[in-house]
């Protein structure tokens, strides 16, 4: 049963991720990303991280992707430009990708492999529940957590300031 669920989630996650970059229509790419995020949530459930799975669906699939879909549906039909939008993109992208891969490999080799075995890691009761995650966030990782929320707040305020510079025409009940 767990194997079936794992492979369903893994195929969804990998297939979705490949479809995001392979599909031409941006709207379908966004939908593929949604499939990917839901599959990841399923994999989190298999790892007994219920809170992370729920947060993944609520925050990413439920809120962030709604904005993506919104934008893609409104400006979706625009043809892609034939030239590189960022100069040197074709050389930079594989380099950055390789760097990320190496970094992730170090992280996986450093920590993830010890749970590989016949039985896997022993999971304490309440692992991954909202209580456990809340304790970690508000006690052990309090300062990074608060720093991240401050950063997000600054980014949001900055976005509002940048958007408010242009004198916007008054919107009277148009389509969003």
């Amino acid at each position, binding site marked *: 049963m767990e194997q079936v669920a794992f492979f369903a989630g893994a195929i969804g996650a990998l297939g979705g991720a490949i479809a995001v970059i392979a599909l031409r229509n941006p709207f379908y790419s966004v939908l593929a990303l949604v499939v990917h995020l839901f599959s990841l949530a399923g994999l989190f459930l298999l790892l007994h991280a219920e809170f992370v799975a729920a947060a993944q669906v609520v925050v990413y699939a*439920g809120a962030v992707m709604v904005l993506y879909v919104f934008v893609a549906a409104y400006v979706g039909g625009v043809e892609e430009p034939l030239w590189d939008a960022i100069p040197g993109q074709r050389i930079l992208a594989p380099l950055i990708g390789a760097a990320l891969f190496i970094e992730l490999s170090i992280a996986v080799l450093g920590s993830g492999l010890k749970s590989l075995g016949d039985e896997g890691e022993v999971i304490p009761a309440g692992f991954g529940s909202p209580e456990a995650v809340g304790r970690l966030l508000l006690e052990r990782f309090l300062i990074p957590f608060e720093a991240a929320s401050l950063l997000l707040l600054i980014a949001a305020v900055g976005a509002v300031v940048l958007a408010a510079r242009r004198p916007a025409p008054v919107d009277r009940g148009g389509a969003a």
Partner: protein
Amino acid sequence: MVAADVGFAEASWIMVVKSLVIFAVILGLVPMILLLERKLLGRFQARYGPNRVGPKGLLQPLADVVKLLSKEAYKPDAAVPILWAIAPALVILSATATLAIIPFGDVADGNVGLYGIDVSIGILYAFAFGSISFYGLLLGGWSSGSKYSFMGAMRSAAQLISYEISMGLALLGVIMMAGSLSLVDIANAQADTIWYVIPQFVGFLIFMVAGFAETNRPPFDLPEADAELVAGYNTEYGGMRFGSYFMAEYMEMVVVSGIAAAMFLGGWHGPGPDWLGPIWMLAKIMVLICLFIWVRATLPRLRYDQLMSLGWKVLLPLATLNVLVTAVLVVVT
């Protein structure tokens, strides 16, 4: 089992039976709510409502279902084939999956819990599955290949992100007072004290207003505003595909009422012996559904900018303030 940790896990066959019972009860309830709504709307508008099919019009929903089932499965040429067919199914999936966490009682006779599942993430489960229903509306509207449908889908997207935050924040006060995310625990926490609707009255109001918006019910039915958008995201749908959207709206009403009844109105607790519990719960759900119908008959539809400013400038600050005040009071007492 691979699913989330449950507060009380039964044997697999009991889970299957429970799912079937919940499904049967709610599917039986939906046509009754439909008839209740049409009858009540009639009375609110000083007319009789349906009274031709069967005694006192009681068989009207049956006639409606037969009509929907017997319609031709029509698909417009401009529609995107697969997405167009998946969309109504997603809405139904999300509505039925959310029904699972509505508790009709605690663990009875020591072996069966009177709820679908009691997950540790509790109410977050409802929000997670609620986000799937958005994709049902959006895909339906986008893939129909029609401007009206597209407008309706875009409106539902904007409405959903504006009201979901207030809805979550409104429940946070109750969660802090009860110290649990589980609906069963929250209902039990109200057994010996007053219902949370009294200390959390602001939260209750915000939750209900946001609930009207989340279920696309009047006065927040802008995604399907029939006066301007024909029928919004479901303009191009007919037959039972339209029926799915229609049924999902009523099931979501039951879900929102059920969550409100469990979190604010004491759940299955009420006077009388214990076996009355599920009946109390059902009665509370029906009272809240009558509130939905009453509001539909009373209030006109909001304009789009009014909807947005109500969500962001009134409900969100109010909900945040409610959470802050509750947090301070919970820590102090």
